[in-house]
C-alpha cells in the first residue's frame, strides 16, 4: 500500500465519518460544521487524484459559500443551537435500512466491477488551472455559457421566492 493510498484512505475515513455525523448529530449547527469537514476532506481527495483546480473550487464554493448559505438558512429559520430531540422523523428505520441496502448494492457491484483496477497517478496530467481552464473554454465553452444562464435564472428565482410577499402582493 503506497503512501498515497494511505493518505487517501485516511481522508476518505474522515469524509465518511464526518458525513455520518452530519446526518446524525442532534445539533443542527454542528451538522453544518461537520459538513465543512466532509467537504474539506473531499477537497483533499481531489488533490490526491491530481484534480488541483477542482479541489480549490471545492474549498472556495462548497466550504466557503454553500456552508455559509446553509448556516444562514439555519439561523433565519431560528434553528436552536443546542441539542434537540426529534431531529429525525419516524421514517428513520426505513431510511437506515434503505441506506445500508444502497451502500451494500453499490459497494458490492463496484468491488465486483473494479477489483484490481489501478489508477496510474505517476504520469497523469495535473488538473491545474491552466489545463482545466483550457478544457473549459475550448471544448466545454457552450455548456459553460448555458450554465451561466442557469445561474442567472436561479439567482432571479431565489430573489423572487425570498422576497416578502406582504409588501408586494400577488
Amino acid at each position, binding site marked *: 500500500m503506497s503512501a498515497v493510498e494511505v493518505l487517501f484512505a485516511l481522508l476518505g475515513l474522515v469524509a465518511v465519518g464526518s*458525513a455520518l455525523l452530519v*446526518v446524525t448529530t442532534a445539533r443542527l449547527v454542528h451538522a453544518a460544521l461537520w459538513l465543512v469537514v466532509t467537504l474539506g476532506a473531499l477537497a483533499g481527495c481531489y488533490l490526491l487524484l491530481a484534480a488541483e483546480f477542482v479541489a480549490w473550487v471545492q474549498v472556495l464554493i462548497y466550504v466557503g459559500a454553500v456552508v455559509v448559505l446553509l448556516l444562514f438558512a439555519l439561523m433565519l429559520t431560528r434553528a436552536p443551537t443546542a441539542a434537540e430531540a426529534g431531529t429525525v*422523523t419516524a421514517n428513520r428505520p426505513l431510511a437506515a435500512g434503505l441506506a445500508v441496502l444502497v451502500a451494500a448494492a453499490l459497494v458490492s457491484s463496484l468491488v465486483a466491477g473494479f477489483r484490481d483496477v489501478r489508477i496510474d497517478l505517476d504520469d497523469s496530467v495535473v488538473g491545474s488551472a491552466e489545463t482545466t481552464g483550457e478544457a473549459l473554454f475550448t471544448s466545454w465553452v457552450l455548456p459553460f455559457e448555458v450554465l451561466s444562464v442557469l445561474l442567472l435564472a436561479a439567482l432571479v428565482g431565489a430573489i423572487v421566492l425570498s422576497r416578502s410577499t406582504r409588501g408586494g402582493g400577488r
Partner: protein
Amino acid sequence: MLLLFPLVVSALLFSIGVYGVLARRNAVLVLMGVELMLNAVNLNLVAFDTYLRDVVHSGQVLTLFVIAVAAAELGLGLAIVLMIFRSHQHIDIDRLRELSDSDAADEAIARDHQIWTGVAGGER
C-alpha cells in the same frame, strides 16, 4: 492507487446522503443530505477522469458544473425553505402535508375554488 478507494468512499457518502434525505426532519438538513450525494458523484467523476486520462477533462469539468448547479439548487432550495418557514413557522418535513389526499385537503380545495370563482365549492 486502487480505483476502488475513491469509488467506495463515494458509494458510502452517497448512502449516507440517502439516509440524511430520508430520515432528517429539518428541511435544511435534508438539503445537506442532498449535498452529500452530489459530492459523492463529484468524487466519482474526478476519479474516473484521472483513471481514464481524459484529454478534455470531461470529468473535472463536469464536477465544476455540478458544483455550480449545486450552488444554484441550494440557493433556490433555501429560498423555498424560507418561504415555508414564513408561512408555517416551522420547516419540519413530516408536518408539511398539503399534498395529502384527505378530506381536509378536499375542503381546502373547495374553499380556494370559492375564493377564485365566487361559486359555492364542491360543484362537481
